[in-house]
């Protein structure tokens, strides 16, 4: 029950983009059409889940026993960067099909703050292993959900008449604001 609440709140209520403002850059940058939004979203789910597992292990097996918690930031970011690079190389060689649809988004993910945030949140909130697993799947699923919805709206937005100064990103942000308003209405369900 507790895990379900955690998952629901991570996907809908404390949505990583709309409520915590993380990962706004890819949210605006890669949402011009639904296909790339879906690809980006799935790549984020994969990277966040795997790198959270890695960083969780690193924190409890290396950093805490050695009492070097202050190295957390630097080791996490290096692990994430190295992991993303590795996955990209591996995919390129072994799974060219998947690479074509997902791989191109991988380098962009290193600078996506959601990855580092989820890794740190798992530690700072003192989640146990099970909660970490749930949190690191649910949070990026929230990202996938909103980036997909957003891209659907955006595809239609191209046909709308917007003032010249609002063209492109500003009107996108207005839409994001309205989505945040809609999501704020879900607060009561947990």
């Amino acid at each position, binding site marked *: 029950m507790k895990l379900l609440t955690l998952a629901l709140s991570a996907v809908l209520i404390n949505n990583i983009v709309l409520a915590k403002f993380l990962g706004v850059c890819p949210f605006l940058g890669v949402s011009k059409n639904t296909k790339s939004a879906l690809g980006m979203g799935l790549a984020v789910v994969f990277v966040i889940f795997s790198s959270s597992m890695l960083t969780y292990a690193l924190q409890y097996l290396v950093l805490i026993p050695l009492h070097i918690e*202050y190295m957390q930031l*630097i080791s996490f970011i290096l692990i994430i960067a190295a992991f993303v690079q590795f996955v990209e190389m591996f995919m390129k060689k072994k799974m060219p099909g998947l690479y074509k649809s997902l791989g191109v988004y991988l380098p962009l993910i290193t600078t996506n703050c959601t990855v580092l945030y989820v890794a740190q949140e798992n530690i700072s909130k003192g989640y146990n292993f099970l909660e970490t697993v749930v949190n690191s799947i649910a949070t990026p699923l929230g990202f996938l959900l909103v980036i997909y919805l957003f891209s659907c709206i955006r595809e239609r937005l191209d046909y709308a008449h917007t003032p010249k100064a609002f063209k492109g990103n500003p009107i996108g942000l207005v839409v994001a604001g309205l989505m945040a308003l809609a999501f704020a209405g879900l607060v009561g369900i947990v």
Partner: protein
Amino acid sequence: MNKTIKLALFLGIVAAISGLVLGIVNYITEPVINQNAVKAEQKNLELMYPNAEFKILDYKDDDGIIIGAYKANDTNYIFKGTAVGYNSSTPIVVLVGLNKDGTIENMVALEQQETNGFGARCFEKENIANLYLNKKSVDEIDMLSGATFTSTALKTIMGEVFEAYEAVK
């Protein structure tokens, strides 16, 4: 191959320097940060042992029940514990003071919104005295009838407190 080694070496040196820098900064700031944490809690800690000198203890609890550990006057221990009682929207937060040999001397509720007349009775002075004070282990702690949820939560906290005491004494 030679090139790879050179690259790895360079990265290694950069990482080593950064580790050193961080180590030094951490060495300087850690006592200040700990002192700040004590200061933030000072007013509450004073409720337990007035005018004592407080120090933060390095104790991390896996279950997230014990959220603070302090030493007062180098003799007594104070643990801050939290658990959910009957009211799930406001978890109970208590400070528990232990003397040198791990007997509960003192308990103060910092936050609790349990039901008046039921759970909230656990925090009445005489009930605290009967149920928790002078107890040395979790087996000695009884439940308060009519306040099952609240006393269970408090018993859980006490169990963790004794565990924490064993770990830091």
